[in-house]
């Protein structure tokens, strides 16, 4: 919990992600912050938003807060539970997913993500989880929202490993490879929001959390970050949004 504010950095990210989901119909979702953000969107501005879980669940109606994307509470009372083949082929590659939420250990200026290793591949300093479905999600979802805490060691000049393609080397490098989805649209952090330039596809600082400055953000990005000419302050979480998170979605505060 931020002492000078009545919400935590995690709550700021959840609310920002929820708001970015406005207008989407089908979201591909993992548990944790993304799960709470999607459910907040459903309970506020987007009651018809549909959630698809990587474990093969569509239309979940969990009776408790799920512990993982494979939690049995996501299966019971869901609309459809399908094989992973169907999930990846029909739902994801089939183009039904409008938006996906992804994260990673490292991100570069074009929104490419590393969730594989820190250090050299053959003898890593830290072995991270790897792709899971992230690589194909980044490729096939119509658009991608990235959620990460803003830290200099995560916002890097060069990834140790490119697990999931964002805008690759920028410009039309992504499009030229014939990648179906449009790639990252927004990077949501606890301290700022970043969009991507329409032409160069480079990350651009566009909104600041209350209390942050352009300089404080620059200090946490390893490359000279582009600044939008009209950087504005992020709208802090509203009372109703906070109430839904705290009373309905995460009453035990597991994700705050």
């Amino acid at each position, binding site marked *: 919990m931020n002492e000078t504010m009545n919400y935590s950095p995690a709550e700021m990210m959840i609310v920002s992600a929820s708001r970015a989901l406005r207008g989407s119909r089908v979201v591909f979702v993992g548990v944790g912050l993304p799960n709470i953000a999607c459910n907040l969107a459903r309970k506020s501005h987007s009651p018809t938003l549909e959630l698809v879980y990587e474990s093969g*669940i569509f*239309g979940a109606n969990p009776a408790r807060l799920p512990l993982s994307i494979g939690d049995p509470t996501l299966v019971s009372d869901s*609309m459809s539970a399908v094989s992973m083949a169907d999930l990846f082929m*029909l739902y994801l590659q089939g*183009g039904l997913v409008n938006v996906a939420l992804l994260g990673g250990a490292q991100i570069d200026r074009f929104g490419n993500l590393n969730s594989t290793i820190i250090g050299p591949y053959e003898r890593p300093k830290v072995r991270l989880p790897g792709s899971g479905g992230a690589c194909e999600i980044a490729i096939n979802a119509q658009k991608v929202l990235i959620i990460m805490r803003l830290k200099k060691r995560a916002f890097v000049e060069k990834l140790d490993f490119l697990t999931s393609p964002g805008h690759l080397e920028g410009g039309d490098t992504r499009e030229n490879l014939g990648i179906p989805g449009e790639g990252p649209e927004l990077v949501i952090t606890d301290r700022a929001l970043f969009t991507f330039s329409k032409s160069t596809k480079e990350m651009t600082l566009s909104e600041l959390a209350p209390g942050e400055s352009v300089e404080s953000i620059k200090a946490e990005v390893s490359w000279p970050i582009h600044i939008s000419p009209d950087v504005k302050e992020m709208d802090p979480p509203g009372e109703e949004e906070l109430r839904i998170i705290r009373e309905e979605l995460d009453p035990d505060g597991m994700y705050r």
Partner: protein
Amino acid sequence: MSESTLCTMNEAVDRFVQDGATIAIEGFTAFICFAAAHEIIRQKKKDLTLCRLTPDLIYDQMIAAGTAKKLVFSYLGNPGVGSLHCIRRAVEKDIPGALEIEEYSHFGMVGRYIAGASNLPFFPLRSYFGSDIIRANDNIQFIESPYGDDQVAVVPPLNPDVAFIHAQRADIQGNAHIWGLIGVQKEAAFASRKVIVVVEEIVEESVIRHDPNRTLIPGLIVDAVVHEPFGAHPSYVQGYYDRDNPFYLDWDRISRDHDLTEKWLNEWVLDVPDRAAYIEKLGSERFDNLKPGEMLAGPVDYGLYS
């Protein structure tokens, strides 16, 4: 999609089936949605491309009625009875008009739907080696495996404009349970731009949610839900009614003659306002005889995890 998409067959066909469209009404021997076909005939849709592994009586009727310009298929037969005489007449004698055909094997059609459903540019399969089917259809190609000396056939995606999927039950959003011969219904539905689910019963959402593995078609991809009991007659719906075999035998006789076929189409399709009237005209005893005995699946507990 969390809204009702319930409508009548008349509305569904009027709204989603355009002249010139590519249509798939699937179901292998079972779940064949004659209700949709008859409404398409009644609305005098034209120049359709009809896709189905087994054109069966349903496309025999649609082709005799002049709705189609092209047929994409893999097996022409009146199952267990013999030929599809109307389609033969179209292919052999251009009656009632010329019919373009595009021919695969079953597996090739399945592969085309899978590719269409999953946004793949092709689907690989081990078939067609040495067969003249590839001479009749240059959509079928061969490619080399990048992993050594191995070659497979490939077929291109099939993405119909509209699919009609007949099911036992669905909620008003189109989340549909299907059991029995599931055929290619799932692949055809996911491959199609618009999906119309036609059901024997509309059920509460909770019925669907209590058995999510049984949901072959998610409401997510469904554009309209039509409640049409006995909509698959004279084919069958597992657990609901049997195939009306006497009709399949009758059709063999009727369909051998184009005039007789037209007379039948007039009497049973064009002069009948909708499916309910067709069912009434057939008479309830006919359906009493088609009702199977009961064979219930055993209990399955998904568990309440709260």
